[in-house]
Each structure stands twice: as C-alpha cells, then as structure tokens.
C-alpha cells in the first residue's frame, strides 16, 4: 500500500459514527433550555432592590457549581464502572466529566469574582468557601496533569479512575464547608445564611422561579450533553492516534 491509500483507508476507519438520535435531541433540548433560563434570569425575574442588576449573575453562578458537582459525580460513576467492567467507554466518560466539570467550576469562580467586585468590593478573598472552591478546581487540574504523566494505557485508565473517586472529596468539602466552618462571608440562599454573610438576598418567589429551571438545566442536561459529546470526541481521538501508530510502525 502506498502512503496515500493507507491514509485514505485510515480516514474511513475514523469516520464518525452518526450522532445518535438521543444525543441530537439532548443537544437541542439543552440549547433551548439554556436560552429559556437566560431569558428568565435576565428579563423575567425582578431586579434585586439592594444589589441591582448584578444579582442576576447568581442565576448562572450557583447552577454552574451544581453543574460541576454533577459532572464530577459522573466522573466517580465512570471510574467505579470502569474498575468494575474494564470497558474503556466508562473511562472516557470519567475524563469528559473532569473536563466539563472543570469548565463549569471555572465559570463558577469567574462569575463569583465578577459579583464580588461590586458587592464585597474585591475580586477575591481567602474565605473558606472560596478557597475550597479554588482547591476543587486545582484538584481536577491535578487529575489532568497526572493523567498526562502515565504512559501505559490500562494503567492510566485504572489509576485515573481511582483518583477521580478520591478527587470528589474536594467537591464534598466545598459543598459542606459552610456548614462546618461558620466564619464564611459567602451567602447561603437555601436555608439560613451564616451570621457573617455579606450580600445575601431574599429568595423571593421571583428568584425561585428563575433559579429552579436553571438549576435543573445545569444539574442534568448541560453536563450530560457536554460529556456525551466530549467522550465521543475522545473516542475518535483515540482511533486517530491508534491509526497514526499503525502507520508509523508498519
């Protein structure tokens, strides 16, 4: 075979399998849902009396954390199922969960900083909850570094499944830290805010109405759709790399 025909046959092998119907549907639903919740948050919900328009960022800020929670949770599920079943698909889900979750966590940190600038008069402060959220993001950055450092393919998948399970502790710490470390200034919207919380606002029916759909979207549709897409890309990437190797070694 000449190099050219080899490449041609290689291309056919990595040709994408058509997008499953369910994924098409999910993608459309997610896009529509995202626009819908944006409209709710930006136009339908009332303006906060004390904080003004900036309070609207909250409709992204809090849901994005729960999106990260969901995605990292799927990493744990993917990891456990990989260790159990040894099927590479689950490891791809775990990896996709980390990347999607990390993106959500960064959105969460960025929106938080933007909100904090006018309300707390600073972009960032070393508050327990902010610190643990930053450490959570770093944990998953460490996941990606560690993953890049392991060469053997099966060893990589196994080790990263294990690490993905442990890394979730940083998510749990972030989630529960305001319950155990009371001196945070971060407000709690659901339930009683800590005494020192600065920038709380009341969860009026308008807030709840805009928040609930957004929360549901970020908890379920967003991470699932993105992770599904990302793991499909990963599969094609692996196929391409395998072919590259085959061509190089033949």
């Amino acid at each position, binding site marked *: 075979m000449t190099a050219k025909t080899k490449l041609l046959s290689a291309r056919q092998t990595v040709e994408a399998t058509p997008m499953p119907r369910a994924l098409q549907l999910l993608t459309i639903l997610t896009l529509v849902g995202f626009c819908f919740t944006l409209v709710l948050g930006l136009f339908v919900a009332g303006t906060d009396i004390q904080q003004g328009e900036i309070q609207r960022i909250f409709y992204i800020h809090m849901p994005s954390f729960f999106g990260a929670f969901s995605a990292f949770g799927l990493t744990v599920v993917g990891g456990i199922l990989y260790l159990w079943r040894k099927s590479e698909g689950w490891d791809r889900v775990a990896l996709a969960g980390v990347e999607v979750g990390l993106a959500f966590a960064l959105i969460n940190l960025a929106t938080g900083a933007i909100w904090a600038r006018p309300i707390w008069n600073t972009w960032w402060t070393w508050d327990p909850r902010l610190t643990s959220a930053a450490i959570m993001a770093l944990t998953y950055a460490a996941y990606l570094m560690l993953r890049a450092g392991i060469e*053997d393919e099966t060893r990589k998948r196994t080790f990263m499944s294990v690490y993905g399970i442990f890394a979730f502790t940083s998510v749990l710490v972030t989630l529960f830290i305001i319950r155990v470390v009371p001196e945070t200034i971060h407000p709690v919207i659901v339930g009683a805010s800590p005494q020192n919380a600065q920038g709380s606002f009341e969860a009026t029916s308008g807030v709840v109405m805009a928040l609930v759909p957004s929360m549901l979207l970020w908890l379920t549709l967003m991470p699932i759709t993105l992770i599904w897409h990302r793991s499909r890309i990963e599969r094609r990437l692996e196929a391409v790399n395998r072919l590259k190797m085959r061509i190089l070694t033949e």
Partner: protein
Amino acid sequence: MDEKTPIIEVENLSKTFGLLPVLRSVNFGVARGETIVLLGQNGGGKSTLLRLLAGLSKPTAGLIRIGGWQMPKEAMEVRRQIGLVSHQSLLYGNLSARENLDFFGKLYGMAKDERAERIRVILDQVGLAKRADSLARDFSRGMQQRLSIARALLHQPEILLLDEPFTGLDQSAAERLEGLVMSAQREERTLIMTTHQLGRAPTLAGRALILSRGQIAFDGNIARMSAASLGELYAGLCGGATVA
C-alpha cells in the same frame, strides 16, 4: 497433570503500550521441562512477553494459561510456580543477601526453619555462601545477578523466566550462570530466557522463538544449528543484526 499438555499456552496474545503495539497475536505453547530462548531486537517485545507470563502485566487481548490457569485473573494459583529474574535486580540494597532471601521466603509463606535451610542450600548453590551477610548494594553486578537467581529459585518454582541474564557479566560469571541454568534444566524446570547473545542460544536451549515486530517470526529447533547459521536466520528475520 498429563505430561503432554503444555504447561504454558499462549493464544493470540496482544499487548499495546499506550498506542504502540508491542506484541501482535502471539501463539505458542511450552511443554513441561522445556527450555526456550527468546530472541529479537531491543524493544521487540521480549521483556513484555516475560512480564505477561509472570502475571505482572495484563494482556490487551488474547489468552495466557499456565498449568491450565488463566493469567492474570487466576494468577494467585500459579504464583508459587513462577520465578522471575528481571533485568532489574529486584533486591533491597540495604539488606544483606540472607535478609533479602529471608524476606522473600516469608512472602512465599515458608516456615522459619524451612526458610533457613533453603536459604543455606540456595546460597551455596549460587556460590554466595561466604557473602551471605554482606549488603546487596556492595555486590558486584555478577554477584547481584546470582543473588537474583537465588531469589527466583528460592521457592522452587516449576517455571523460571530469565530476562537477559547474561548482560553485563564477565566470562567467569557467565559460565557460572550457565552452570546454574543447566542444573535448573536437570531439575526439570521449565525455562524461558531472553538473550542477545546468539552464540549462547544453541548450547542453552533446544528451541528458540524469534520475535520480530511483535510477532513470532521463527519457532523451531535450534539444537543442531551452528551459531553462524542461527545468526544468518536471525539476520534474515530481524534485519541487519550482528552475530554475537
């Protein structure tokens, strides 16, 4: 077990490192008491094959059976039957020869008296009885190699896997090692060893496997072959190799 059934069966064995295929659909069987040399280029998959046989690594695809047990799933059943001499020493530098062997004896569940007796015998056999209480890190390469062999033979395994045992040994050490291999053969152990030294192969083993590009390119009797004709065969299969 029936004498004729092979002690090691390898079927369609493949192993991929990262994305690099190291072994591709390898098939062979080894009879009880047989000695095999594995030949092939560096990075040709020889060490990988030994690690797979030892149950230290998992096949990407295919099947390995040792004494009828599937590796590595049922490896626990055959661990006692396998001894490995790796290209690393697998020894603790801060422990003496005796302490090293004692530790591994414990891991193989040998009782105290049995251990002491067995260590005495094996150290004598590899010619290290006088240095039993020196630290392993003070040993020369040849002595470390002999201690490694003592470690691998300590639990009297049926199968002995040797990865490049002759590398870095001087003439007298190599001859001593050859003697050890011969005595293991007399004890009817199954031996699989990799080597670069084609010249040694016919004196050591009746059968050779030549691995080329992760596949078995030759599997046959070399007992009556001269070193030169084996070299020719090897060069033909692996391309441009020099005859040692």
